[in-house]
């Protein structure tokens, strides 16, 4: 797409920031018993406890959610109770996936005199008919009145791949089979299984050419990430998952003006995040936010990932897709594998909008990496006021709070339940 803006240049960011903690609520078909706050509280507590911090240590808090999931305006306001915003916090909210809240927090850590940030998101996709609700993302004059649903729009995209010979329905089933198998070792997955691609091809169509296994399950979930900058990250954990680059790009809204078989915005975001030269060959794994099986194929192609890269070792969004959470969870899952030593370098991706309209790419490494590139700009005017706010009281946390995060994995749901 010629209009995709100027070519990506690695952003001149100033200091290394890392993911140091990640927690998530095991995604379930429907969380009937707990409200948003009750779901979030143990997740936030678990993320903070893991690094011995409390909310009072957080230099910034940012969240992502959407009012349309529960059909209530200001649904994020009460969710703040899960953090306990007293004394008052530096806090903000995006009406987007939590991955974009993490981006905002990362920017804040580049800019402000703070060392830590808490990012969280929650999504009760089960409350309504999410397939229909997502149709309200479309142009309200000429598209939304037709009530196109999210699966049908994705199916239009999948058809383009099939028509052009880029991928077949069998390829979609291969993706789903691998994701389900990967999910058997993911206690937070909503669905998992060992069915072969051949088995899955017996599934019925939800919207042709997408069969049940090629569509995500509907589920409720939440996730929280703690970010830390510079030395603070190294103090908190042995192996921080350093964010060596992050960027996001949006495409035009008109589906008929896009090349649905490609994801130029993903490619551009990846270049801007630093996926240039030989970097792609060093990626060990990629967590791609592909709610539909064919979208993983589009993303992997756009990113130019090598054959050996482990794709969605968690199972990805095909096995747990709480809206507004699934993107943040991709960053968390990728970071977790860097932190536990199973990967040196990982790529995480998040998406927003119909047919991968908007895409975010985050590169993670066990080395702070090219942080020095931004060093020239760090001189600046540090110390121009601002409350420090992060006077550390590590270890004063200790709220139990994690009760209830276990035991609900794998309940109910099946692939393709968006139907």
């Amino acid at each position, binding site marked *: 797409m010629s*209009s995709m803006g100027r070519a990506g240049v690695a952003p001149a960011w100033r200091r290394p920031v890392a993911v140091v903690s990640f927690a998530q609520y095991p995604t379930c078909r429907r*969380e*009937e*018993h*707990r*409200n948003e*706050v*009750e779901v979030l*509280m143990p997740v*936030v*507590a678990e993320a903070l406890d893991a690094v011995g911090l409390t*909310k009072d240590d957080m230099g910034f808090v940012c969240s992502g959610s959407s009012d*349309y999931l*529960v*059909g*209530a305006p200001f649904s994020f306001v009460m969710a*703040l*109770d*899960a*953090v*306990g*915003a*007293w004394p008052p916090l530096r806090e903000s909210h995006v009406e987007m996936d939590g991955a974009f809240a993490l981006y905002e927090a990362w920017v804040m850590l580049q800019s402000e005199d703070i060392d830590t940030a808490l990012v969280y998101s929650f999504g009760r996709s*089960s*409350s*309504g*008919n999410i397939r*229909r*609700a997502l149709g*309200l993302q*479309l*142009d*309200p*004059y*000429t*598209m*939304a*009145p*037709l*009530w*196109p649903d999210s699966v*049908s729009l994705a*199916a*239009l*995209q*999948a*058809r*383009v791949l099939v*028509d052009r010979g880029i991928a077949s329905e069998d390829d979609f089933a291969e993706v789903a089979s691998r994701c389900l198998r990967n999910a058997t070792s993911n206690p937070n997955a909503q669905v998992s299984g060992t069915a072969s691609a051949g088995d899955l091809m017996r599934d019925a*169509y939800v*919207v*042709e*050419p997408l069969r049940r296994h090629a569509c995500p399950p509907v589920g409720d979930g939440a996730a929280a990430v703690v970010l830390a900058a510079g030395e603070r990250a190294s103090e908190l954990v042995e192996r921080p998952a350093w964010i060596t680059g992050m960027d996001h790009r949006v495409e*035009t809204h*008109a*589906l*008929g*003006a896009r090349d649905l078989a490609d994801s130029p915005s993903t490619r551009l975001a990846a270049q801007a995040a630093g996926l240039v030269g030989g970097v792609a060959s060093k990626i060990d794994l990629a967590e791609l936010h592909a709610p539909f099986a064919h979208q993983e194929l589009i993303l992997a192609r756009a990113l130019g990932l090598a054959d050996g890269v482990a794709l969605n070792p968690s199972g990805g969004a095909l096995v747990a897709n709480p809206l507004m959470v699934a993107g943040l969870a991709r960053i968390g899952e990728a970071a977790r594998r860097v932190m536990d030593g199973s990967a040196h370098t990982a790529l995480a991706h998040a998406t927003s909008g119909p047919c991968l309209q908007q895409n975010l790419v985050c590169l993670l490494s066990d080395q702070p990496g090219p942080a020095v590139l931004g060093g020239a700009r760090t001189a600046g005017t540090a110390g121009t006021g601002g409350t420090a706010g992060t006077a550390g009281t590590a270890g004063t946390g200790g*709220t139990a*709070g994690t009760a209830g995060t276990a035991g609900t994995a794998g309940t109910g749901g099946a692939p393709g339940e968006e139907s």
Partner: protein
Amino acid sequence: MADTEVLSSPHILEYPYSRSVGPVIGSFLAGLRDGKVLGVRCGSGAGERVVVPPTEYDPLTGEDSGEMVEVGPGGVVTSWAWESEPLQGAPLDKPFAWALVRLDGATTAMLHVVDAGSAGAMATGMRVLPRLVEPSARVGSILDLACFVPEGSDSPVRAQPAEPGNPAQPDDPAQPDDPAQPDDPAQPDDPAQPDDPVTTLSTPIRLDYRFSAGISQSRFLRGLVEGVFIGQRCPRCAKVYVPPRGSCPTDGVPTTEDVELSDTGTVTTFCVVNVPFQGQAIELPYVCAQVLLDGANISFMHLIQGIPADEVRMGLRVRAVWKPPAERGPSLESVLCFEPTGEPDAPYESYEEYL
């Protein structure tokens, strides 16, 4: 806590949105009403494109778009997806194809549906023609274009359009209010003349949800059925919250200890309501007050009755007036109102910190 059954309830989010459409979309919608499809020129020179549906801007660059041009009527399917079980609100109530259709003369494809009878009749690259609804039923909407049909097909013209945007299910008890505005120029009962601009578009939206109250709120709501206020105490700061939400908003920890509260309390502050608003069924003027129940550390809003509005004051001591047990439900509406107890007013200092 597992002994408390969690309450849930249907929740309907519904509004008959009425949108001003601006000149470009207005021309497009007027064109559909008048039986033609319009696009708009964008870009220049070798980069010139014709965009359908038209927008005020070039969908790639954001620059202002140019002149409107008629396209079609026929076009080519560039992608399609077969919907075998149409969802609520879909343009057709039988199996159909969602499709991207590039009309003759257009550069971009538009989203709509194809009535082809079966998936077997669909193919990328096939030629299609638009089917408009009856002229008398057109209102200046994307739904004036009922669907596309395969070229050469003998599919009948649809007799009636779907209810614009959002037909309720046949068994749906709650019909949306009639969105038509009396002065709306684009209503079927006021047939528009060709070239009349379309300025407004009605797009009723209804979404159905299932709302879950959560554990703590459910316990509180069930208490109301029994005629008691059940709050919760924070294990860290010991403050008592009513209604409880399961967490302490300042400590961010679960509140698990239930506290049964008195149904007497103090008016901390209030306002006198003189304005009627939707759903209100109380004689004006009336008083809405923040009531701090004895033993609670937070107030909630309720009605004050049994005292003239101009005699309500901060510090007034009040007691809940419960509905008869048979009429109570899991709602604060089980409390009709609060009325004075006759006790002396509470001193300002006793509730000052709750203002």
